C-alpha cells in the first residue's frame, strides 16, 4: 500500500529560481534561506519518497482568469514548465504518475470535491522551485508528482476549512492506493506577503509564527480563519498559506515537526520551510536528524 511519509511546506518566490541559476546560495542575502534546506536534503536522502503530491497555486501559466478552476488535479505523464514572462529560467519537466492521479480524482469526486481534471497541465514556479530546492542539480527529480492546484488568485477563494478537507480527502485516498509507494505531500507559497496596493510590502512575523505553531499542534484551529481575515493578517498573497493547510490536512498519521526555517525577507516575502514526519520516528526504528 502507499503510505504518506511526511509533509513539507516551502515558499516558492520566483526570484529563488534566478538565485539558483546564478548560484547565489551562499550570498549573504540568500544564505539564511538556502541553509534551511540542508536538513531537507538529508531528510529526503533518508526517506526517499517515490511520489510527491504538490498543493500549489498557478500564477497565470496553465490557467488564465477566463477559466480558473477552484481545485484542479493533474493527470499527465509529464508536467512541463514554460516561459512565465517575468524573466526566471524555464525549468526542467516533472514526471507524472497518472494512475495515482486518477485514483485521487476518483476518491475526491466520491468525496464531493468536483475537481477539474487536467491531462495536459503546465506547472509554474510554484511547483518547480520547491522541487529544485529539495533536489538541487541537473539530474531529473527523483519523484513522480501529482500537482493539485488551488485558486488563491481570484476571489472567492475556497475557505481554509475546505482546503483542509481537500487535503484530508487526498490523504485518505493515498492510504488506499494499492501500489507500494512512499508519498510526500508538499504545500507551497507564503508565508505573509503582499505585492499589490498601498499596503505592498506587508509582512506579519507574529502571525506567521502562530500559523507555523498551529500547523504542527492544532491545524484545525487554522480552518476558523475567514479568507478576509487571512488577507488582513498575512497579506493579499499570504493566502497561499491555503496550500500549506491542504498539505497538513493530508497528513493522516501522527505528525511531528522535524524542521523549521523562517527568514525575512526573500523578495517581498517572509520565507518559510517546514518538514513534518507523518509518524513518530521511534515507531519506525529511526531517529530524526
Amino acid at each position: 500500500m502507499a503510505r504518506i511519509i511526511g509533509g513539507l511546506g516551502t515558499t516558492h518566490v520566483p526570484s529563488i529560481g534566478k538565485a539558483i541559476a546564478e548560484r547565489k546560495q551562499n550570498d549573504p542575502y540568500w544564505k539564511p534561506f538556502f541553509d534551511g534546506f540542508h536538513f531537507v536534503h538529508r531528510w529526503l536522502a533518508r526517506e526517499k519518497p517515490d511520489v510527491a503530491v504538490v498543493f500549489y497555486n498557478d500564477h497565470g501559466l496553465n490557467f488564465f482568469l477566463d477559466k480558473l478552476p477552484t481545485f484542479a488535479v493533474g493527470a499527465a505523464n509529464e508536467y512541463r514548465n514554460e516561459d512565465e514572462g517575468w524573466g526566471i529560467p524555464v525549468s526542467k519537466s516533472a514526471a507524472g504518475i497518472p494512475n495515482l492521479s486518477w485514483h485521487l480524482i476518483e476518491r475526491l469526486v466520491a468525496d464531493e470535491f468536483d475537481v477539474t481534471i487536467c491531462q495536459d497541465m503546465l506547472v509554474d514556479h510554484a511547483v518547480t522551485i520547491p522541487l529544485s530546492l529539495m533536489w538541487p542539480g541537473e539530474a531529473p527529480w527523483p519523484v513522480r508528482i501529482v500537482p493539485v492546484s488551488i485558486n488563491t488568485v481570484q476571489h472567492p477563494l475556497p475557505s481554509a476549512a475546505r482546503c483542509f478537507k481537500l487535503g484530508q480527502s487526498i490523504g485518505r485516498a493515498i492510504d488506499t492506493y494499492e501500489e507500494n509507494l512512499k508519498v510526500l505531500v508538499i504545500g507551497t507559497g507564503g508565508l505573509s506577503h503582499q505585492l499589490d496596493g498601498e499596503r505592498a510590502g506587508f509582512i506579519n512575523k507574529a502571525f506567521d509564527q502562530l500559523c507555523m505553531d498551529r500547523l504542527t499542534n492544532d491545524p484545525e484551529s487554522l480552518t476558523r480563519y475567514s479568507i478576509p481575515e487571512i488577507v488582513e493578517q498575512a497579506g493579499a498573497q499570504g493566502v497561499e498559506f491555503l496550500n500549506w493547510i491542504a498539505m497538513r490536512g493530508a497528513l493522516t498519521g501522527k505528525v511531528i515537526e522535524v524542521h523549521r526555517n523562517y527568514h525575512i525577507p526573500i523578495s517581498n516575502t517572509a520565507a518559510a520551510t517546514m518538514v513534518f514526519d507523518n509518524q513518530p520516528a521511534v515507531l519506525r526504528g529511526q531517529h530524526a536528524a
Partner: protein
Amino acid sequence: MRHHNIPGTTLFGGDEAQKGIALNRMCFSFNSAENRTAFLKDEDAYCAKFGLNAEQRQAVRERNVLKMLAAGGNIYYLAKLAGIFELNVQDIGAQQTGMSVDQFKDKLVAAGR
C-alpha cells in the same frame, strides 16, 4: 471585492475580474517572448489589439501600478508587464507605497526584526 475593510488592499474578485479582463489578458500574453517584443515595438497597436479601455491604456502608458490595479489589473499578471521593463516586485512595491526602492527594501528587512 466588498465585505472587508483592509487598508490599501483589494481582494481581486468578480468586479475586478470583469473590469480587468482585457488588461489581464494582454499581460497573460507576455508569457511569450515574441509578444513581449511586439509590445515593445508598437505599444499602442498591441494595447489596441487587446481592447484596453482608456483608463487601462492610460495606466499602462504611465507605468502606474496603482492605476492599473484600479482599472482591474491583477498583480500576478501586472508583474509580467513589469518584467518587460525589468522591474521586480521591490520596484513596483516602492512605486505603490511612494518610497524609494531602498526605503522599501529597508521596510522589508525591518519586518524581520
